[in-house]
């Protein structure tokens, strides 16, 4: 029954126009970035490299597909959660608003399975969004800008990665980025179990992300103890794969915290939905 209802959830997601908004917006944003890089990418790069030009000499195609893919990921990882929440925040509350939740809940399928099938469908939608992002960032961008060694500026300075050493890093960073987006999906589905309309969970998800991000970026000792437990702190962990050497301990810690958040959101949603009186 879980698989049957998950299949139903896919049919609903595919048929809903809002499911395509995320993919369309993502494509449009990447095209805008690509246009900007094509038109004025060299000055953007010289802004970064100018401070090193007295000690280093940069040769070859610095503004290549590898670097632009990194820039795209860095820029969009803030905005993609909204696109994810737009669909996943509607999965339970949208049914309540439409009245179909009554029909679903009177069928011989347990409420736990109804919620789990929505989490699975949300996870698959998020995966499709991430794969689409990866396709645009790695395939299309590389096709347009070519490949080459990659320079990354991080808190420890400039890291230069050889072309042959990059692809696996992107593979791993997309997996961690997916886990971060999955956490957003789980949060919005969890909030959706509490609401009777779609707007509430979507706005609340974004509100929580903004609030946690602000808490994480404030250099105030009172927040130091909680920062490492906020999922937003670990949403940019994908970047760690572009450091040299890679701090695997930090990455595993981030993965663990994101997984714990996902489990927590699923459990809360299942408990809430099982106890909920459906009066809509």
């Amino acid at each position: 029954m879980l698989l049957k209802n998950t299949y139903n959830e896919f049919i609903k997601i595919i048929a809903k126009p809002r499911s395509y908004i995320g993919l369309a917006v993502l494509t449009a944003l990447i095209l805008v970035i690509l246009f900007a890089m094509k038109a004025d990418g060299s000055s953007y790069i010289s802004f970064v490299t100018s401070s090193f030009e007295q000690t280093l000499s940069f040769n070859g195609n610095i503004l290549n597909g590898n670097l632009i893919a990194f820039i795209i990921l860095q820029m969009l990882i803030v905005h993609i959660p909204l696109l994810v929440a737009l669909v996943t925040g509607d999965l339970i509350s949208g049914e309540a608003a439409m009245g179909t939740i009554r029909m679903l809940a009177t069928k011989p399928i347990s409420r736990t399975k109804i919620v789990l099938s929505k989490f699975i469908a949300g996870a698959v939608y998020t995966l499709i969004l991430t794969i689409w992002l990866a396709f645009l960032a790695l395939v299309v961008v590389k096709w347009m800008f070519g490949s080459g060694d990659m320079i990354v500026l991080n808190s420890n300075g400039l890291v230069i990665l050889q072309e042959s050493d990059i692809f696996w890093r992107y593979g791993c960073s997309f997996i961690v980025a997916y886990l971060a987006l999955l956490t957003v999906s789980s949060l919005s589905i969890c909030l959706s179990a509490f609401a009777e309309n779609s707007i509430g969970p979507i706005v609340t998800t974004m509100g929580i992300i903004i609030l946690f991000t602000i808490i994480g970026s404030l250099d105030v000792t009172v927040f130091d103890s909680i920062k490492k437990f906020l999922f937003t702190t670990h949403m940019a962990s994908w970047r760690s794969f572009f450091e040299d050497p890679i701090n695997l301990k930090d990455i595993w810690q981030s993965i663990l915290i994101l997984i714990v958040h996902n489990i927590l959101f699923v459990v809360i949603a299942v408990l809430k939905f099982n106890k909920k009186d459906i009066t809509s």
Partner: protein
Amino acid sequence: MNEPIIEVKHLSKKFGNFEAVKDVSFTVNKGDVFGFLGPNGAGKSTTIRCLLSLISPNAGSIAIFGKQLASHRSQILNNIGCIIEKPDFYRYLSAEKNLEIFARISGSDSTKKDIQEMLEFVGLDGRGKDKVKGFSHGMKQRLGIAQTLLHKPDLIILDEPTTGLDPQGIIEVRNLILRLKTEQNKTVVLSSHQLSEIEIIANRMVIINKGKSVIEGSVESLVNEQELLLQIELSDAENAIKVIGMEYPTLKVKHLYGSTIEIALEKELVPKINYLLVNKGFEIHSLEPKRKLEDFFMKIIQE
């Protein structure tokens, strides 16, 4: 012997401090078309939602098909079809796709052919590919009934199935329910504000008021328990009242309007009154017994 399909005992449900259902008990037997009556806010919808496990009761027990709902939820729901208030569907999907979705989780092996046949049964043949967002209220209601019947349940629960329908739609749904009973021997629980509808369709009923079940029994016997009101339209109302008063001084006779009088009497007296008036030279234009469920219902909820 009557086989109970639904047994509700001392059901109660609170929302915060508000006690929507205080003490509702009733039994629905196999093959019944069971009327579920009550004024607005009496607790009908809450009780029906409890029957379908949409709402968890605070106290009392619900047994359906001889099993406790709390412990056999999926098994019981597998054999129930229902419409709660209005059937809501995925507007962005076609009628066929909607039926496919609900059939898939209803534990039925409905094929595309079954879906087509069901659409035909409810009069929506040829509209299966159309998106539900373009459907009228009546069409959605009929699609709701198709969804209810597709997995061939033994028990059908319909909460206000004719709300918002035009007269033709009401008659269609009514006939459909009668067909379910006569052709398929389904047990139907029907909640409705249309008392005349219950009177025509149902064989048994319960009336609930202020969260409590007030009376339960056969529709015919409950309605027949009350005094008959006979309305007679005749040539001279004022004189007719005098004539009846002289012959039957204990009867309550009143002038209703125009040339119509109303008499409260025993059923056996109807032919005698008719004979008396005709013998005294009155022209009888119509003679109508008014012992209706509506009067009975009003009497019960005002007590």
